């Protein structure tokens, strides 16, 4: 049978980044085909090329066996390719109908198209369990329904091939299950589904075949039934990287941080952090595991004073700090914070390294008395920290943006650890950091713990959590699902992260 889609020898560069290297792929009609790979493996780029969002430097695309030129999303749509992006492409103040019709109006007036769409939506709802109120405003719909509208948009435009880019990242487990049911129905009715993800579980659960990408290359394609999680994982990572960190037993002392019934609601009133309680003691690392977007970031923000708790209490060394929401006060009291998003928060790209290396601590008197900022002291401090943390190049005058991810992270870590904090809050310490730096960073965190400091670690990398933490808390949908010690079984943690608590606990 002719494949629905064939990509032959696709090559794409962005400046010096080689995003796709001679990638070839065939996707069978009426199947669910998974594409899996780590962040930056080139999956999204490849699909963006198929959808006409980027243009390949080399290579050929065939749809239904015929070579086609896809120069824009319009071409892709015309060839029956639809895409559901990771960030939804919806117009929030518009109704569902208006969103569906956008780009497929048919005539100069939109009246008839809206009527046609209304009928079609009813039909689609019936066939694929895709129920949405056509007159609802997008901005007021929950995320799961917004995603449904994205699928409806593609189907309304006649998509035979549907690409979904990390569709479950923003969904609750319930919503994800629903999505999978819908995808199954779509396949059964003859549609072709391409699912981009980095979650092995999803791949195993619903795909027919799976292709693995690594560093811009296509590593191989397997029948899902004939492969295993282990095999796929190895293909994804290349060689097994064992994140075993040398560390001794923890000697926890008195409690440093105590969080009691903490809740934080977003502007819509949804509790993103929901009645959370735990504590961190001297000389231990407490890790918070969880799939990203389950309230960990918000929890960090509240503890670090960037956001104000809606209710509940945070006690640091006997003082209640939750209501203050003042990061500077917290720093003075001995709380250091390595933020999750180093590019957007941890440093200022346009500042030179020395200026980034005092971010948040610039008020200190050692950097200049009163309002004065002593440039020489700033540069000296930076130079010192760069040496201590082996930052390369060790140039305090270089723009922050010019350092590699690992070295940027070392600059931030150096800044926070060198202040000799009693509590260090760390978010995603090694995201997008090279292997060498990961090891270095992990060692420094352990060393800090061994000095008797308290560390609260948030990471979406379960391996990292397991290798560093002395105690593990698992967060799901804003709640702490449970606490386990460092020796906890990976499967058990995985279940907690998926929100399956009661029977396991």
């Amino acid at each position: 049978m002719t494949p629905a889609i064939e990509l032959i020898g696709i090559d794409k560069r962005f400046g010096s980044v080689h995003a796709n290297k001679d990638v070839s792929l065939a996707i069978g009609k009426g199947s669910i085909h998974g594409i899996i790979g780590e962040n930056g493996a080139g999956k999204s780029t490849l699909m963006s090329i198929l959808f006409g969002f980027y243009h390949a430097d080399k290579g050929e695309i065939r749809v239904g066996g015929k070579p086609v030129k896809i120069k824009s999303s319009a071409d892709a749509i015309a060839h029956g390719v639809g895409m559901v992006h990771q960030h939804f492409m919806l117009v929030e103040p518009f109704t569902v109908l208006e969103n569906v019709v956008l780009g497929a109006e048919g005539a100069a007036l939109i009246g008839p198209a809206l009527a046609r769409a209304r009928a079609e939506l009813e039909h689609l709802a019936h066939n694929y369990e895709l129920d949405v109120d056509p007159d609802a405003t997008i901005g007021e719909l929950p995320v799961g329904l917004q995603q449904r509208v994205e699928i409806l948009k593609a189907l309304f435009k006649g998509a035979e091939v549907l690409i979904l880019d990390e569709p479950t990242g923003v969904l609750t487990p319930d919503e994800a299950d629903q999505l999978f049911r819908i995808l199954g129905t779509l396949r059964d009715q003859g549609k072709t589904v391409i699912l981009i993800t980095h979650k092995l579980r999803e791949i195993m659960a619903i795909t027919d075949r799976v292709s693995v990408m690594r560093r811009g290359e296509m590593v191989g394609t397997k029948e899902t039934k004939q492969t295993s999680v282990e095999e796929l994982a190895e293909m994804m990572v290349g060689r097994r990287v064992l994140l075993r960190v040398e560390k001794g037993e923890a000697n926890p002392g008195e409690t440093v941080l105590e969080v009691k019934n903490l809740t934080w609601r977003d502007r819509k009133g949804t509790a993103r952090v929901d009645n959370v309680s735990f504590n961190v003691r001297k000389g231990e690392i407490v890790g918070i595991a969880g799939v990203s977007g389950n309230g960990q970031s918000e929890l960090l923000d509240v503890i670090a004073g960037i956001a104000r708790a809606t209710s509940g209490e945070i006690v640091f060394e006997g003082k209640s700090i939750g209501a203050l929401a003042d990061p500077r006060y917290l720093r003075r009291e001995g709380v250091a914070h390595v933020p999750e998003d180093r590019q957007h928060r941890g440093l200022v790209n346009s500042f030179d390294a020395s200026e980034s290396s005092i971010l948040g601590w610039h008020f200190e008197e050692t950097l200049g008395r009163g309002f004065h900022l002593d440039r020489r002291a700033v540069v000296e401090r930076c130079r010192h920290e760069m040496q201590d943390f082996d930052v390369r190049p060790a140039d305090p005058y270089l723009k922050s943006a010019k350092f590699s991810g690992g070295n940027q992270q070392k600059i931030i870590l150096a800044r926070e650890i060198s202040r000799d904090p009693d509590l260090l809050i760390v978010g995603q310490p090694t995201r997008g950091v090279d292997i060498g730096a990961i090891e270095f960073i992990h060692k420094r965190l352990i060393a800090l713990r061994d000095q008797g400091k308290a560390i609260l670690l948030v990471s979406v990398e379960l391996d990292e959590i397991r290798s560093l933490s002395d105690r593990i808390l698992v967060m799901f949908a804003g709640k702490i699902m449970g606490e386990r010690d460092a020796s906890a079984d990976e499967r058990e943690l995985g279940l907690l992260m998926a929100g399956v608590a009661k029977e396991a606990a």
Partner: protein
Amino acid sequence: MDPSLIPEILASSIRMAVPLILASLAGLWSERSGIVDIGLEGKMLAAAFAAASASFYFQSAWAGLFIAILVSLAMALVHGYASINQRGNQVVSGVAINMLAAGLAVVLGNTWFKEGGRTPALSEAMRFMPIDLPGATALADIPVLAGLAKIVSGHSLLTYLALALVPLSAWALARTRFGLRLRAVGENPHAVDTAGISVARLRYQAVIIAGVLCGIAGAYISTSLSASFVRDMSAGRGFMALAALIFANWRAWPALYTCLLFGFLQAIGNFMQGARIGQFEIPVQFFNTLPYLMTVVLLAGFIGKSIPPRASGIPYTKDR
């Protein structure tokens, strides 16, 4: 104040409101597509100069209108190029347009007519003159209707055009494919791009419409409201139109009402020179300032809320 003046004040309000209406519709189209337009003032001023010069040169108001539109369009395209292709700062571009217009109008006017930046006085044939609506004169003797006729009739063609463009714009934005796409591109250009529609093309279309409308507004100022061009004659109307647009929350009908209100304030300012409340003489400047004051108060969120299109002012890049 003499009550018999009321029809006159109201008619004058409409006359003062016309350039505001046209300019805020221009701003409406541009900003609804996500292109902030601080340059309404400059485009209007350049068009006013072009209209006065061309209608004097060609002895025809229509030629003046045509050239005014072309000139305003050219400036709009500069703004479009800076904002859409170059992804430049739209506010900065608008400020530049305003200065270019203010400078060029006087420099060229001075060269061509040697009257210190003024253009020669235009005769009736070179202007858009008042039109009496059919039947208006017949009502002249009937008490209330006469006043009404005085308000509604006796405006120039451009006034009626401006008034007609309001429902047309509202309808086009709400009901046409173009309007739907344009509104979408001002809210989320990524959604438009992935739907296979060119963001740049839509925004250029919006900018072009804004250019044409400002052209008409400018022509109205110099060839209908007045009979020649004088320096800085747009007198902040572009900014007042912007204020009206904000007040109207980027909608056509409310923009019309706000412009009429602002026009009324201007008219009343002219008629009420020296009016008193008790001992206190109301300064003319008070009425002139009121639209700006009202806008500040509105923007501060004390009387309702004004939410601009989400993508306005942000250059579009594919990368997210």
